[in-house]
């Protein structure tokens, strides 16, 4: 008897116990599907937050029109000396207008109709540490020649907070779902174990090791978990694909950040689900056998 024999036995066990195997397959698949939805939400929220953070790791300092090149160089030097500043760049009002035109795309002609460029010259500060952003704003604002400092600290804080909450809540729900699926699998396997109690008793009397007895049951759990993982990752992948097709553009316009790539996500989902499904199956079978192998 070897690994091959254990695999054969695991399959015949699933065969003997079709209804319950199907039931636990369905339960794990359902749980993984819900889990997958949360996973997608978390990944996209993270992605969006990263994008927003990148948008917000810059502080724009509008300069008064009276500021000349010498004063501007002085200002840049003063700003660069502040902690948390990675670098500074000068943006002329003409360059700023060009950027706006790019951002607005098709609607750029609205800007053309302006009688004159409404934008001021500005210095762009790259922030190395978002936590220091408020201190930089406070340090720059009183400097001579600064008209206004443009930075939305509140938005960033709120966004980071929301992201944190979404992550924690999802994590709790995911852990809860994993716990439930371990229970479901262990109950299914317990039925197979009970059906083979006599066989297990003989095995123990003759001197089979616990791991030898556990093997086929463990594999049964692993198979059920793996198949559930493949089914649910495929379903989630397909649904996500259609979702992006249908709403991807709207989302882009709404948040100016795009969905996480579907192939990248589906592949990762498959790996994560496979790992999860296998561990759920394995844990379930070990839990269910514990009592029968005590001695």
């Amino acid at each position, binding site marked *: *008897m*070897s690994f091959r*024999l254990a695999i054969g036995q695991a399959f015949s066990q699933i065969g003997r116990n079709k209804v319950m195997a199907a039931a636990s397959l369905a339960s794990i698949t359902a749980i993984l599907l819900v889990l997958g939805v949360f996973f997608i939400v978390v990944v996209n929220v993270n992605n969006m937050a990263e994008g927003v953070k990148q948008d917000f790791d810059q502080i724009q300092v509008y300069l008064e029109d009276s500021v000349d090149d010498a004063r501007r160089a002085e200002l840049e030097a003063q700003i660069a000396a502040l902690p948390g500043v990675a670098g500074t760049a000068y943006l002329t009002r003409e360059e700023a207008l060009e950027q706006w035109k790019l951002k607005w795309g098709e609607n750029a002609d609205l800007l053309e109709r302006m009688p004159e460029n409404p934008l001021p010259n500005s210095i762009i500060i790259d922030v190395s540490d978002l936590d220091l952003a408020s201190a930089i704003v406070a340090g720059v604002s009183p400097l001579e020649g600064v008209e206004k400092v443009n930075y939305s600290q509140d938005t960033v804080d709120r966004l980071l907070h929301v992201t944190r909450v979404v992550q924690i809540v999802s994590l709790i729900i995911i852990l809860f779902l994993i716990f439930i699926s371990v229970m479901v699998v262990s109950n299914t396997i317990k039925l197979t174990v009970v059906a083979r109690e*006599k*066989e297990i*008793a*003989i*095995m*123990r*009397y*003759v*001197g*089979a*090791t*616990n791991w*030898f*007895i556990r093997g086929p049951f463990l594999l049964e759990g692993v198979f059920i978990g793996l198949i559930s993982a493949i089914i649910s990752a495929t379903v989630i992948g397909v649904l996500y694909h259609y979702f992006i097709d249908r709403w991807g553009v709207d989302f882009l316009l709404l948040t100016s950040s795009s969905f996480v790539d579907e192939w990248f996500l589906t592949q990762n989902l498959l790996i994560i689900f496979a790992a999860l499904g296998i561990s759920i199956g394995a844990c379930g079978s070990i839990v269910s056998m514990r009592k029968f192998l005590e*001695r």
Partner: protein
Amino acid sequence: MIEFRGVSKKYGANIGVDDISTSIGDGEFVFLVGPSGAGKSTFVKLFLKMIDADKGHIFYKGYDVTKLTPRLVPAHRRSLGIVFQDFSLLPKKTVYENIAFAMEIVQRPTRVIKRMVPQALDLVGLTKEANKLPNELSIGEQQRVAVARAIVNNPDVLIADEPTGNLDPETGWEIMRLLEQINRRGKTVLMVTHSREIVNAMNKRVIAIRSGKIVRDERGGLYHPDEDDDPLVCARPSEEALPLT
């Protein structure tokens, strides 16, 4: 050699065995007798390490069974063969497969299995029944399969728990002849039984247990009426029992 030294085991308030000391030499044939609940099964289970002793030591082959870690228990059991009252054959496996199963689960190579199973079948006289399912056999034949399974891994000790309990006298004797034959090949045989006829006819060592204590241990012993099931007898203190020899 099997040696029990001051072994006690309680189940809550109930006594399983109480300060038992005895030893069984290699190649001996021993009957373990006593009323139900006297501690015979506890004795066997302790030796198999199916339960843990509260006190005392059980020495076997130079190690202390009571000290075995769970990892070492399977190896211990492999040196013992066990026959149960209810045969414990797997109904969906053939006679051959039932015996081979005992070798498969201790991971013996296939060629060894192919050589040993026919030998065991030959010993119990069931070569022709190899491909039958257990329910196609008589009860006596089923028990012989169980004996074949118990000895196929070549254990040093054969433990038989009421092996004739479910058999008619004639079939019971078949099994006894088989056990005696195995004993003559040098195996230690420890048999738990209630059968007066068998104990009296076999003229072997008899260890009688009552209320968890060994009340009699004699070579060529006979079965005493006290050893019959009787709740009143069971409840009586062991001091009134027959003296130890």
